[in-house]
């Protein structure tokens, strides 16, 4: 029910058209995210092809080191900006506000991690810091953009799932989902066992390495949450609210895929031409993370203007 003290500050006659225009601007932001990612991926394919034809790896390195790093940082910045805007749409005490707090913080960690790893942690024309500091920046970025970010995101998605449960639309994982999650859980368990064994036999890991150990278990938790969100959205049917959580699901799935690809490359299971494709996964993953709050904000703005289609909002 409308709360008069909240709604009486700005006349609704003035607010509604403004909200409709905001929704249109947000639709442009989500289109721009998709377009920029699409253009970069096309550029990546051209660079890959040039590398395969000429044998000169510089083609790929130039594309991923400068425009790639800039795009990733821009996507992370957009994700943070939009997440904070979504957060501000909810009043204190509202369940979705509880979910968007950690999501906004995870977006902040993503931005910090991306800047440290992609810009300050590499030898690049974009890097203003001394080369000697690159390793420290990279290590810090991996921790902030890895376990810190994933833990916060897992907390945010958990609170979102609680909202779905409260509404009665919480989806359940099916046999196919467990068929995907089961082997990954087994692999993580085996890996953890190996680590424990190595430590018992006297291995002394560095702090950076130890801090990154929770990445895989956290990614597994995120995958479970992402799949549950996807099933919940499926249960509700296609709607604007669902787009946001579908985008989060896709983003988590892509990050997991990128992580598996990185692991396969490191252990020699993925030959070089295919390994380059793994680099490209992080761009659509970053785009999906940025699109999620954009879609949520769009749904809220449409609700303010009372529209039932994107075309209505433009009209």
């Amino acid at each position, binding site marked *: *029910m*409308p*709360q*008069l*003290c*909240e*709604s*009486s500050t700005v*006349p*609704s*006659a*003035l607010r*509604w058209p403004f909200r409709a225009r905001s929704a249109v601007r947000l639709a442009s932001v989500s289109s721009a995210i998709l377009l920029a990612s699409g253009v970069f991926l096309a550029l990546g394919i051209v660079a890959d092809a040039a590398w395969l034809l000429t044998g000169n790896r510089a083609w790929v390195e130039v594309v991923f080191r400068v425009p790639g790093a800039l795009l990733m940082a821009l996507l992370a910045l957009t994700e943070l900006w939009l997440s904070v805007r979504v957060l501000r*749409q*909810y*009043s204190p005490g*509202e*369940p*979705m*506000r509880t979910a968007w707090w950690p999501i906004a913080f995870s977006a902040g960690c993503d931005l910090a991690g991306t800047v440290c790893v992609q810009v300050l942690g590499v030898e690049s024309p974009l890097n203003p810091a001394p080369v000697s500091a690159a390793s420290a920046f990279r290590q810090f970025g991996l921790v902030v953009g890895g376990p810190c970010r994933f833990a916060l995101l897992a907390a945010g998605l958990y609170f979102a799932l609680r*909202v779905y449960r*409260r*509404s*009665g*639309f919480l989806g359940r994982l099916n046999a196919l989902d467990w068929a995907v999650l089961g082997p990954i859980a087994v692999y993580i368990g085996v890996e953890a066992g190996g680590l424990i064994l190595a430590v018992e036999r006297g291995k002394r890991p560095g702090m950076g390495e130890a801090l990154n150990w929770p990445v895989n278990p956290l990614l597994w938790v995120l995958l479970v949450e992402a799949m549950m969100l996807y099933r919940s*959205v499926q*249960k*509700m*049917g*296609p*709607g*604007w*609210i*669902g787009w946001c959580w579908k985008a989060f699901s896709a983003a988590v799935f892509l990050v997991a895929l990128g992580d598996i690809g990185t692991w396969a490359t490191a252990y020699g299971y993925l030959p070089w031409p295919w390994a380059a494709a793994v680099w490209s996964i992080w761009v659509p993953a970053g785009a999906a993370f940025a699109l999620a709050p954009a879609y949520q904000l769009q*749904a*809220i703005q*449409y*609700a*303010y*203007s*009372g529209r*039932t*289609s994107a075309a209505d909002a433009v009209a």
Partner: protein
Amino acid sequence: MHPDVETLVRYRGGELTRARRAEIAVHLRRCDACGLEYDRLRAALAGEPGTAREGASLLDAAMLAAVVVGIQGWEAAAAANPAWSGDALKSRVAARIGPYLGARAAAGILQPVSETGEDLLSTIEPVLALFLGARAASRLVTSVVDAAIVRI
């Protein structure tokens, strides 16, 4: 807890219980914003200029009054015209909230709503508020009432 528009309209019409009336009266004396809004509402319903200073707020109140009159008219007509209640009403509301929640969710939420539709708003608004926030959900519900009930 601030009273909502529907409660204020019922308060003005003397439709509330004695205890609830007393509670609202105390709140209106203590809360300036609600008091001001009640004055605007009263003025708009009575067709008077009222105490509001902002023209836009008066417009808002006038629109609200039109919605209230529309609801009252609909309630009276619903008994005589079955097309205005039951499945027809649910289908119109589902068409408005379906694009937000999803068609299956909209149908699921509206299923337990009574044939007369009297529990419609109290059923859909909490679910919309969970996902969109209370402010956006309240705006959406107002537009749903306007499009699916008042303008029919």
